[in-house]
């Protein structure tokens, strides 16, 4: 068993470090491990079947739909309106427009299923605008990277859909469970920004003077389209018009209508949204395929079972177990992409955590949080890449700027371990009402 694990780990490090595309590399490790240690079985047949099963799964269909929705909105002026609408309302709060990152990401997270899309779309508008108004580039980038991660925690969420499928828990229940922690985390980020601003009097640009009632009113009007779109998607789910997956299609429809109304929908932009969405879907899909096959291969080699037995035999207390898993995932999250981390480790960790008395729904939220941390830890962090792409800021500099937000997330995760009710009370409440 040690030989298998060392071989697999060595191969993984070698393939990924040499720059092999992540999805192919993960699959390659699976293929080589099986060929070396279970050579008598038809590896190629298992591979083909796994590729087929994992890419044609009906449960994944929401993913391309939400990606397409994001691509369409990215080409609309909706996000622009969002920030113009928010500006007057945050003027009195310490930190002022810095909060637009948090608020904007929180709102956008409610319609987009992914962190990268949230970060990219909101960041495109805020980063230039914040710097133009004299805010420090580092805190702007840090708060954007941190808040962008809310895309996964606040429903809809592609990570939650994948977790729901793998852990066989209701996706709707997962979505509901993300709401309270998502809002609390956003609040924690805002409190930090407020303290940051108070500790540096005079460093922030001055307030907007002479805001009148009309300005607030106009701002509200500007926020209208976003509110309608969000209500449209969420409403379709609550009224039974659409299932959670189908809500992705409703979101695309809503985005199309927004683009039509704003007159920014041409055949050309529609086509480029489709091409863009197809490529992002392919990127994520290839990683899912590789991660899926690697975890299947590890399953055939009985690796998860052995590790689970080892960790299980440690007899850790529930809280110690959570702390240990947190460290484990943060380390993994520095190197690997979040989605594949979940796929690869879930068969090991889910049984452990449920045995320790935690609810699978709670663990789903825990995993979403560690995946969010993985988004902002170097060397491999999607949000860091995205912001690097938007602002040209060095990855290391962004990573340092986001460090306080990372620490807030660690503390928040431990808080959830001590008070799991923060996660479970809302889904339980909804369930109790039927």
């Amino acid at each position, binding site marked *: 068993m040690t030989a298998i694990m060392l071989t697999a780990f060595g191969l993984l490090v070698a393939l990924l470090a040499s720059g092999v595309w992540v999805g192919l590399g993960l699959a390659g490790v699976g293929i080589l491990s099986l060929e070396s240690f279970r050579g*008598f079985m038809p590896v190629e047949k298992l591979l083909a*079947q796994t590729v087929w099963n994992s890419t044609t799964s009906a449960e994944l269909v929401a993913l391309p739909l939400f990606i397409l929705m994001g691509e369409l909105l990215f080409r609309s002026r909706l996000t622009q309106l969002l920030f113009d609408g928010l500006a007057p309302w945050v003027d009195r709060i310490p930190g002022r427009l810095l909060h637009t990152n948090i608020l904007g990401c929180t709102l956008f997270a409610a319609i987009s299923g992914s962190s990268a899309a949230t970060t990219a779309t909101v960041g495109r508008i805020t980063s230039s605008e914040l710097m133009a108004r004299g805010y420090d580039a580092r805190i702007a980038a840090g708060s954007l990277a941190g808040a962008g991660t809310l895309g996964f925690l606040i429903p809809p969420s592609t990570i939650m859909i994948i977790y729901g499928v793998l852990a066989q828990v209701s*996706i709707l229940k997962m979505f509901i469970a993300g709401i309270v922690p998502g809002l609390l985390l956003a609040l924690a980020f805002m409190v930090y920004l407020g303290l940051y601003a108070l500790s540096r009097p005079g460093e922030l640009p001055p307030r907007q003077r002479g805001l009148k009632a009309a300005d607030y009113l106009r701002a509200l009007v500007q926020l209208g389209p976003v509110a309608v779109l969000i209500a449209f998607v969420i409403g379709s789910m609550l009224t039974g018009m659409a*299932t959670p997956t189908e809500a992705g299609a409703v979101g695309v429809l809503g985005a199309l209508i927004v683009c039509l109304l704003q007159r920014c929908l041409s055949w050309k932009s529609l086509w480029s949204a489709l091409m863009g969405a197809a490529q992002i879907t392919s990127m994520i899909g290839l990683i899912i395929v590789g991660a899926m096959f690697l975890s*299947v291969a590890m399953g055939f080699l009985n690796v998860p079972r052995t590790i689970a037995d080892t960790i299980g035999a440690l007899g850790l207390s529930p809280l110690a177990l959570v702390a240990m898993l947190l460290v484990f995932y943060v380390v993994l999250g520095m190197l690997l992409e979040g989605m594949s981390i979940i796929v690869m480790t879930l068969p090991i960790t889910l049984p452990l955590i449920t045995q320790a008395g935690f609810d699978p729904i709670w663990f789903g939220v825990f995993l979403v949080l560690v995946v969010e941390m993985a988004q902002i830890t170097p060397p491999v962090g999607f949000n860091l890449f995205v912001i690097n792409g938007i602002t040209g800021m060095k990855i290391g500099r962004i990573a340092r700027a986001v460090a306080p937000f990372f620490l807030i997330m660690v503390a928040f995760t431990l808080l959830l371990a001590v008070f799991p009710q923060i996660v479970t009370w809302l889904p339980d409440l909804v369930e109790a009402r039927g």
Partner: protein
Amino acid sequence: ATQLMIVTPWPEGNFQVKTLNQFADAVKKATDGEVEFDIHAGGDLGLKGPELLSAVRDGIVQGADMLLTQQVGQAPLLGIESVPYLTRDQDDAALLRKLAWPYYEKTAAQFNQKFLYTVPWPGQGVFTQQPVESVDDLQGVKLRTVDKNGTEFFKALGASPVQMPWGEVVPALASGAIDGVTTSTPSGVDGSFWEFTDYFNKLDWQLAPDVVSINLDAWNSLTDEQQQTIESLAQKMEPQFQQVSQDEDKRNAKILADHGIHMSSPSETLSKQLTEAAQPQWKQFRESAGAEADELMTKYLDARDAE
């Protein structure tokens, strides 16, 4: 010792997995530990169901506990027990099971494997918000169905069949995207269906049998003595396991009733209407599943009606 890797899509704790574990223990004991089943439950090897017949044939795994209904894409004859309302009660079901077994064994051999034993799932009924006493009560009901048989059967009965992945069923029921679900009592308990529906009519319109199957190469690598031991264990334990299935049905029916679900069975009139609605599919099965399937169906109906 010989280790055989056996997969099943059902999660640990399901009665099919429990009986499979019991069988594995019995085999290990009876062969003095020489033959061991390495059971992987819950699809942790990425195999989901419809491909299990070929997975065992190709030796990806040495054996599987698979749902026969899911294998019809490759071997249509294996779907006979799921033909709508072909069996009306437990006696019919036992008769069909007995007559079908030799045919199953033949099909299994064609797919390079050997079926050891079969355990049916509890019969399928309908969870609905309104009582189902006659066919009229099914008109326009948006009912989640799984396979071709169910979809066409309930369409013939006037319902509006809807297909969606199991993961969507509970949210869809909760929000009213669908009105009902056709499934068995254990699944009703798993999904806490009392939160969304008030009635369960146990139509028993379809049987869904599991078989435990072993790859023939793996089987032939065992000694004659081991083969005989395993075969006789399968024969001995099969009736016990089938009893477990029935007990499971009763236990879950009680849980449903305790949570306020009204349980019922089809009246004689409804039973006649169900038989009538199923005729096109009986015919279709005879025509499309091959000559042997047609022969088996005749044999069964003759035997059933002679009683």
